[in-house]
C-alpha cells in the first residue's frame, strides 16, 4: 500500500479554482518534488494536506487512513509534518525549546507533574533534551541550543524548522521551499541533509522548490502544477525536458 494517496483534491476560493483535481501517490521512502511557476497552487496543496484549508472536493489518505477535514494538530499526530515558505519559528524561545516543542506529543508528562516537579518531569525532560540534542546535531545546530530562534541566521532558521518538524516523528515530511534564500553551497549541504534524514529516519519527503539544481539533484519524481492543475508528472529528468513545462516557466 502506498503511504500517501491524494484523490481529486481541489479547493475553490470564491470563483477561483486554486487547486483542481490534484492526484498524487507517494510510496514509502520516496523523495518527490512539486514544482510550478508562482501562484500555481503548490503551497495551497500543502495547506490542504496539513488541514490549514479544508478541501472543497476530493480526499486524501495517509497509510490508508482518511485525513480529509481533520484539524492541523490531528493531521500532525497522524504523521504529516511540514515547514513553511515564510519561516514560522517560535522566535522568543531558544533553539532547544523549539525542537522540544516538536517532541511535545511524543514524550509526555501531565501539567500537574510539571508544576509539582515529580520524578517523571525530570526523567522526561532529560530524555527530551537528549533527543533534541541528537536531532540538532544532524542539522549542525548543536552549538546554538541556547540561542533565541529569532537570532539565528536565515539558513539556520530553515534548518531549525526542519528539525522541529522531524521531532514530531512524521511518516511524511512536507518541505515548502527549503532552499529559498540559500547560496549554492548551502543548497548542496541541504540536499545531503534531506537525503540523510530520508534514509536514516524512515521518511517520505514531498518538497516544493524553485531551485532546479536541488529538484533534479534529489527528487526521483516530480509533478508540475500550473494554474492549479497538473501539467506534467513523472521522472524528474523527463518532465523537465517536457516542452509544455518549459513553456509554463519561460513563456513562449
Amino acid at each position, binding site marked *: 500500500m502506498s503511504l500517501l494517496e491524494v484523490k481529486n483534491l481541489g479547493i475553490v476560493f470564491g470563483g477561483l479554482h486554486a487547486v483542481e483535481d490534484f492526484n498524487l501517490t507517494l510510496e514509502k521512502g520516496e523523495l518527490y518534488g512539486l514544482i510550478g511557476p508562482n501562484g500555481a497552487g503548490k503551497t495551497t496543496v500543502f495547506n490542504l494536506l*496539513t488541514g*490549514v484549508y479544508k478541501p472543497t472536493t476530493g480526499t486524501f489518505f495517509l497509510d490508508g487512513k482518511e485525513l480529509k477535514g481533520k*484539524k*492541523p*494538530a490531528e493531521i*500532525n*499526530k497522524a504523521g504529516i*509534518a*511540514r515547514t*513553511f515558505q515564510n519561516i*514560522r*519559528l*517560535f*522566535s*522568543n*524561545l*531558544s533553539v*532547544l*525549546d523549539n525542537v*522540544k*516543542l*516538536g517532541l*511535545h*506529543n511524543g514524550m*509526555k*508528562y501531565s*501539567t500537574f507533574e*510539571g*508544576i*509539582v*516537579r515529580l520524578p517523571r*518531569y525530570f526523567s*522526561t*525532560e532529560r530524555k527530551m*533534551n537528549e533527543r533534541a540534542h541528537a536531532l540538532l546535531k544532524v542539522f549542525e545546530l548543536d552549538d546554538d*541550543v*541556547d*540561542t*533565541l530562534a529569532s*537570532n539565528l541566521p536565515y539558513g539556520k532558521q530553515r534548518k531549525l524548522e526542519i528539525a*522541529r*518538524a522531524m*521531532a*514530531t516523528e512524521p511518516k511524511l515530511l512536507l518541505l515548502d521551499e527549503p532552499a529559498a534564500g540559500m547560496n549554492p553551497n548551502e543548497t548542496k549541504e541541504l540536499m545531503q541533509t534531506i537525503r540523510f534524514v530520508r534514509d536514516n529516519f524512515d521518511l517520505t519527503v514531498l518538497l516544493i522548490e524553485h531551485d532546479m539544481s536541488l529538484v533534479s539533484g534529489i527528487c526521483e519524481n516530480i509533478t508540475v502544477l500550473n494554474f492549479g492543475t497538473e501539467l506534467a508528472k513523472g521522472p524528474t529528468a523527463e518532465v523537465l525536458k517536457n516542452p509544455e513545462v518549459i513553456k509554463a516557466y519561460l513563456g513562449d
Partner: protein
Amino acid sequence: MAKKVNSPLEKKKSGVRSVTKKNFVTYLIVIVFYAVFQTLTATGHLKNAYQSLLVPICYSVVMAVSLNLVVGVLGELSLGHAGFMCVGAYCGAFFSVITKDVLMTDWLRFVLAMLIGAAVAALAGVIIGIPVLRLKGDYLAIVTLAFGEIIKTVVNVLYIGKDASGFHIAMSTKNLDMAEDGLLILNGPQGITGTPKSSNFTIGFILVMLTLLIVTNLMDSRTGRAIMSIRDNRIAAESIGIDVTKYKLMAFVIAAAIAGCAGVLYAHNLNALTANTNNFGYNMSIMILVYVVLGGLGSVRGSVIAATILYALPELFRGVGQYRMLLYAIVLIVMMIVNNGAFFVQMKEKALYNIRSGKKNNAKEAA
C-alpha cells in the same frame, strides 16, 4: 589595541540551569522582602499605615503574576482579570461566614475558603474562557472587559440569606422569602459583612510564594512551552500537533484560579466586602495590567517588583496631598522610559556585563 568586544546582547543564555537560577533569584527577593518587613513590624519600626499595605501588596503581586500568565505567556490581552478575583473573594467570604459557627480552626477554615475560591474562580474561567478564547486581539480584550463588569454587577444585585429551611437566593430583598430570624449573608450592594479577618502578611507571603512556584514551574515545563508556542506562532504550533484550544484554556483557567485565591486573601483582610469599580471593576483590571506591562510581559520577577512598587507608591505619596496622582503618573512614565528606552537599556546591559566580567576577572586573579 583591537580588543574583541563581546556585546552583552550577543550572549543570551536560556538553558535549563539559568532558568532555574533566575527563578531562585525571584524567590529570594520575595523572601528577603518578607523577612525585612516582618522584622520591622515585629520590632515596631513600621508605621501602622504602612503595615496595612503589606497584605494588599501580596494580593496585587498574586494578581499581577497570574495576569502575566495570560497576557505575557499566552499573549492574549485580558481586561477582566479582577472579575475572577471578585468571584474568589465572594465565594471565600461566603464560605467563611456560613461556617463561622461550625467547629473548625481558623486556619483550616481559611485554607478551605481559599480552595473553594480558587475552584469557583477556575469554573468561572472555564465558562468565560470557552467563548472568549475563540476571539483574538482587541475583540478578546473587549469581551473579557465586559465579562469582568458582568461579574461585578451580578454580585451587586445578588441577595443570599439562610434560615431554618435552608438557603434563599434572589435578586432583591423582597423576593428573598426568608423567615424572620434568618440571616442575610450576601446583601446586594452592601456585600458580605462579618468575614473573619484571617489574612495577614505571613499568609499573603505564603500565597505569593505558592503562586510564584506554580507559575515559574509551569512556564518551565512541557505545558508552559506549549502555551508560549501559541503566543509566538499559532499556525506553527498547530502544525506540530499542539492542541491550541486546550492550552489557551488551561492558561486562562489557571490564571483565574490564582486570581480567585488573591480574592479570598482580599476578602479576609476586610470586615465588609463590597464590589465596586475600584476593587473588582475596570479600574482594578487596568491597574493589574499596568503592573504586568511595566514589569515586562512574560517576566515574573518584573511583575512582582512592579506590583509592589506601584501599589505602595500612591500610599507613600499621601504626604503631597493633591499632587499624589500627578507624581504617580510621572513615575509610570519614567519607569516606561527606563525600562524600554534604547539608551537606558544599553546602559543597563553594559552595567550587567561589567559586573559579570568583573566577577570572572576576580576569579581568574584569585586562581
